[in-house]
């Protein structure tokens, strides 16, 4: 009863605070749109390569690679000047049989792209060389075979000695084997046809697709954390919390009232974000969308409990903001946006206390693999443990302001 009244009041206050409401709903959409534009166009890197004294063949091969432009320079000095002027991103110089590669290296993705392109071009040219060599050897082989045939015929004509016959048979077998290998080789010279199959998404699926499920959770966490923390802080500083606690209301009713109101808000926010990402950004949701909403709702409640708890350690709105770099930002690093596999073990262990990691894992599974929410029991259980513990701490924590 009182819980519902508190919920109504918090919702009413929120609805009247138009700017905060806009922040909660418009800001995530805006950021997501921006990110999708930025990350998707950045997935291809255009590089300019300057070459000095490199074979025509290699130049051509490099130029044929997509997003690579080749400029030839006569001297290394000229190429270096171009590199200084940022006209090119790398120099390839051939001296004798060795290649010297110089990278501007101001953008590591460009350096990687050049390395890849160079490697591919070198492989392509050497494959061409191999091909022509192979052609030569095949014609040689044909000659050899003809000779063999002649030899065999000669041997067959002469009266066969037992030993001689055996040797001839051996030779014939060897020749046959060789001819079959050349046969297979000649078929393999035809370029193999490659068809790509994508389990999730299509060839345009980029890094953003991996970030999206986690980002979704992050926005829910960030805004609920901040706004609920601020709201309770305001109750405390304006004295309404004291006044509230001077009535027979239970401490738990206050906490649950806040949970209900922000829970409703988080559901709306999540639904909106999911719809935007599906319709506007064309995200593919393999699993059940309701599961996504449920998981984000639990995360929102964890964020709420977290926000309320930390607001008791802040004396002003500015001090509440100071928790953002301490509490919110580190969550991004361990949420799985940056692959955890590549981190050191002790760093990886930190991720176990990050709520966003669990929701990120669960939502990623649902969206990208179509996992059922019931198979995400582990992640959800951990989130619920967070929720119960934090809620309990909050109810206890309100004892600071009223002893019963």
């Amino acid at each position: 009863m009182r819980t519902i009244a508190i919920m109504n009041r918090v919702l009413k206050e929120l609805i009247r605070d138009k700017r905060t409401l806009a922040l909660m709903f418009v800001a995530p959409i805006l950021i997501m749109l921006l990110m999708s534009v930025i990350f998707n166009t950045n997935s291809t890197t255009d590089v300019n390569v300057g070459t000095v004294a490199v074979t025509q063949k290699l130049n051509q091969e490099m130029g044929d690679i997509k997003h690579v432009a080749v400029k030839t320079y006569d001297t290394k000095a000229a190429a270096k000047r171009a590199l200084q002027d940022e006209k090119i991103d790398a120099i390839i110089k051939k001296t004798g049989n060795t290649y010297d590669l110089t990278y501007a290296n101001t953008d590591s993705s460009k350096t990687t792209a050049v390395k890849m392109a160079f490697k591919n071009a070198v492989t392509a040219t050497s494959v061409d060389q191999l091909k022509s060599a192979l052609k030569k050897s095949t014609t040689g082989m044909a000659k050899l075979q003809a000779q063999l045939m002649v030899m065999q015929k000669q041997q067959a004509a002469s009266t066969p000695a037992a030993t001689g016959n055996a040797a001839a048979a051996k030779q014939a077998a060897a020749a046959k084997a060789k001819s079959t290998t050349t046969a297979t080789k000649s078929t393999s010279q035809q370029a193999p046809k490659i068809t790509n199959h994508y389990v999730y998404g299509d060839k345009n699926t980029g890094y953003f697709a991996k970030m999206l499920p986690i980002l979704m959770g992050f926005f829910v966490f960030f805004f609920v954390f901040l706004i609920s923390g601020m709201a309770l802080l305001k109750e405390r500083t304006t004295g309404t919390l004291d006044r509230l606690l001077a009535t027979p209301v239970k401490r738990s009713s206050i906490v649950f009232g806040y949970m209900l109101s922000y829970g409703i808000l988080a559901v709306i926010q999540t639904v909106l974000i999911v719809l935007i990402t599906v319709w506007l950004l064309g995200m593919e949701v393999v699993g059940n969308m309701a599961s996504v909403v449920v998981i984000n709702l639990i995360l929102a409640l964890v964020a709420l409990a977290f926000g309320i708890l930390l607001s008791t350690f802040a004396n002003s709105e500015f001090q509440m903001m100071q928790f953002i770099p301490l509490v919110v930002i580190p969550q991004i690093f361990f949420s799985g946006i940056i692959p955890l596999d590549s981190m050191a073990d002790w760093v990886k262990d930190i991720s176990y206390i990050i709520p966003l990691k669990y929701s990120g894992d669960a939502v990623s599974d649902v969206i990208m693999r179509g996992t059922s929410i019931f198979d995400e029991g582990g992640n959800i259980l951990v989130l619920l443990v967070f929720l119960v513990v934090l809620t309990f701490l909050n109810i206890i924590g309100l004892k600071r302001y009223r002893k019963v």
Partner: protein
Amino acid sequence: MAQAMIDLAHLAKKFGDQTVLKDINLTVNAGEIVGLIGPSGAGKSTVIKVALGMEVANGGSAKVFDTVMPDRELLGRIGYMAQTDALYDDLSGEENLKFFGLMKGIAKANMAAEIAHAAGVVDLTADLKKRVAGYSGGMKRRLSLAIALLGNPELLILDEPTVGIDPALRRQIWAELGKIRDEGRAILITTHVMDEAELTDRVALLLGGKVMAFDKPAVLKQQYGVNTIEDVFLKAEGVEQ
């Protein structure tokens, strides 16, 4: 002797190393207005917080309605007005009253009548639909008082209720407080305005964490040999120093 609504005996309270209250003896009886005066930082608000059960005393006993505080259920029978206005700015006056009415446990059927009565006392009936953010300082104070009056509580605890209120309205409020007293309810009030202290039935002078004097205003004036409560206050303070 009338029934004691508040009974504080040998109350002591410390915050960390700082001793705020040393030995407080204070009773508020039914049908009585008790004034609590003292310089800033004397511990007036702490006395109130202990009486409400927001803080627990380190020594002595704090009883309200013969029950040892803190006790959550009892709070429904106490009307409390804090020093700060403590209102929700984004809600209208009426919504504030309704919310706190619900928190106090007033039945929905009586709510409208209760709100109308409390708003009438503080002369806010015309402004109930406006948002509190647009209220003047005095209006906020009055709304805050109206919230305390909701539900006809048997005991009113008012922390500086008349700060920023016009003289005419102040008189009106005191008339209402007098009516409440005559109904047999009790009021504990802290104030800085000394002529208001004259209007109370008994005055407790809080100084240095102790109740220096506690009696009828007239008796106190006689004791200290002065003409006003203000002089009593100044004299008592002088003795302390």
